[in-house]
């Protein structure tokens, strides 16, 4: 009996969780004058999307977001791989101190340091640049810890064998560790991509031109240009447009994504 109630409750929760998305999608296809009513008519339109696309340079925003997300991901993968290998496999002077320094970044992430980092960017004359949006995130303690866990599980014998074959350290890293940690890279990659695709506060502060503004900031500016709820349909359309690419990618790869997470040994 209790089990049945739980089951029904958990399915109910799933429906409750899906509701905001379904409602936003539904509203985005409704004619403007019907957007606030709950009448179930068969009126659907693409007007809202057309209007939104004309009203703001969303194509430029998409490109900016894409470049920013890719830049951060590539840099993070490189820095995290190198650091994770050192922490997982080498004994060296100052290891514990450095490990704590990395832990601190997990507790005090760049997002919280919006004001101090604004000053750093200003001193570097990098305000309102794409590289400025990316730089504070080039090192990721989260990525380092995730990869370190995985590297630790890779037996030392593999490395020894590769060394016998005459592989250099870089070849060992590239041919032994990186391929074996593939699920962790996928899991971290998706977390990183969705995080930076969605990041808002930091780019809001340091950008003020269309050339550098990402989708989230563009969407906020678009949504705030409306005073009342009369343009719900348009704002919903813009919102759906912004969340669609990531959502689609997630739906297509959700099995791999969740499995990589499970197999990456995140504990």
């Amino acid at each position, binding site marked *: 009996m209790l089990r049945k109630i*739980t089951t029904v409750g*958990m399915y109910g*929760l*799933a*429906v409750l*969780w*899906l509701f*905001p*998305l379904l409602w936003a999608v539904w509203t985005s296809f409704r004619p403007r004058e019907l957007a*606030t009513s709950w009448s179930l008519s068969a009126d659907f339109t693409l007007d809202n999307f057309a209007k939104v696309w004309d009203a703001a340079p969303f194509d430029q925003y998409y490109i900016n977001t894409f470049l920013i997300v890719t830049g951060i991901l590539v840099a993070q993968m490189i820095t995290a791989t*190198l*650091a994770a290998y*050192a*922490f997982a496999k*080498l004994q*060296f002077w*100052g290891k514990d101190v450095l490990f704590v320094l990395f832990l*601190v*970044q*997990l*507790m*005090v*992430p760049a*997002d*919280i*340091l*919006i*004001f*101090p*980092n*604004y*000053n*750093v960017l200003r001193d570097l004359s990098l305000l309102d640049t794409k590289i400025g949006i990316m730089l504070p995130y*080039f*090192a990721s303690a989260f990525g380092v810890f995730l990869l370190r866990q995985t590297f630790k599980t890779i037996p030392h014998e593999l490395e020894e064998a590769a060394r016998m074959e005459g592989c250099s*350290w870089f070849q060992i890293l590239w041919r032994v560790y990186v391929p074996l940690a593939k699920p962790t890279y996928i899991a971290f990659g998706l977390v990183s991509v*969705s995080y930076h*695709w*969605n990041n*808002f*506060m930091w780019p*809001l502060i340091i950008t003020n031109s269309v050339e550098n503004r990402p989708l*989230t900031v563009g*969407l*906020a500016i678009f949504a705030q240009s409306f005073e009342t709820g009369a343009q*719900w349909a348009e*704002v*919903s359309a813009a*919102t759906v447009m912004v*969340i669609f690419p990531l*959502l689609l990618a*997630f739906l297509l790869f*959700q*099995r791999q994504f*969740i499995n990589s*997470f*499970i197999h*990456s*040994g*995140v504990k």
Partner: protein
Amino acid sequence: MGELRAKWKVNMYAWLLLLPSLIFLLLFTFYPVIQTFILSFHQADLGSPEPFFNGIDNYKQMVEDEVFWKVLTNNIWFAIGTVPTSVALALGMALFANKALRGKSFIRTAYFYPTVVPMIAVANIWLFIYTPEYGALSHVMEWFGKGDMNWLGDQKNVMWAMIFMVIWKEAGYFMIFYLAGLQNISQELYESASMEGASSWTVFRRITFPLLMPTTMFVSIIAFTNSFKLVDHLVIMTKGGPDNASNLLLYYIYETAFSFWDQGMASALTIVMVVLLLLVAAFQFFGMDKKIHYN
């Protein structure tokens, strides 16, 4: 002699590998915090063209500032409201999604997808949900014959509205960590428990929950940091209002720094937040670490 050289080589090697991460860590975490610490003892606002030393004036002013206390209290309530609930819900979701017989991937998708939706988009959607008269919640309240409520415009309701929305946004993300944790528990433990005829509650209490402790600790730290980090929605939904009822520390820093241009005060506020986060993290880390079984 040879051993010493080999040791030195490994040391250099390790530091070189860590160097790229370290540069960015120093430049965007440690250096800014130190600079901000220094700036927090200076008067640096629109009225002072050159920042000058003013001792602990900023901190004094902060202690007397009612808005600061309100924002801090709000943030603590926000953390209390979101962290335990979303972590517990995530555990429930993971247990269910792990075992669900029908629609496993549907269930996981439904729980998880809010994670990939930007907070700013979430804010747009939930703004409509919470809107009086036209919003979804108002429609639902109408069905139940309840009067209309102004969720975001009322000081008493706005924090609840935010807490609920953030739980919706985050629980699915934490569920993934629990799903991973569940996979790592050996099946033999469950088999021997069922041989002894243990009830499912006992199994949960004696096996599953204790073995998931490391996951719980990790997730709690992330959830707690998030409760100070998540402020994007305030820009769209309330701007911290009404009368600062939904304002949070980071948003207050943002206003102080970029709307009022009071850099000395923004620095002092940032230092308070950093100290607070580190203290709680240290407490979580050292306090909980002893009680955890690492497998």
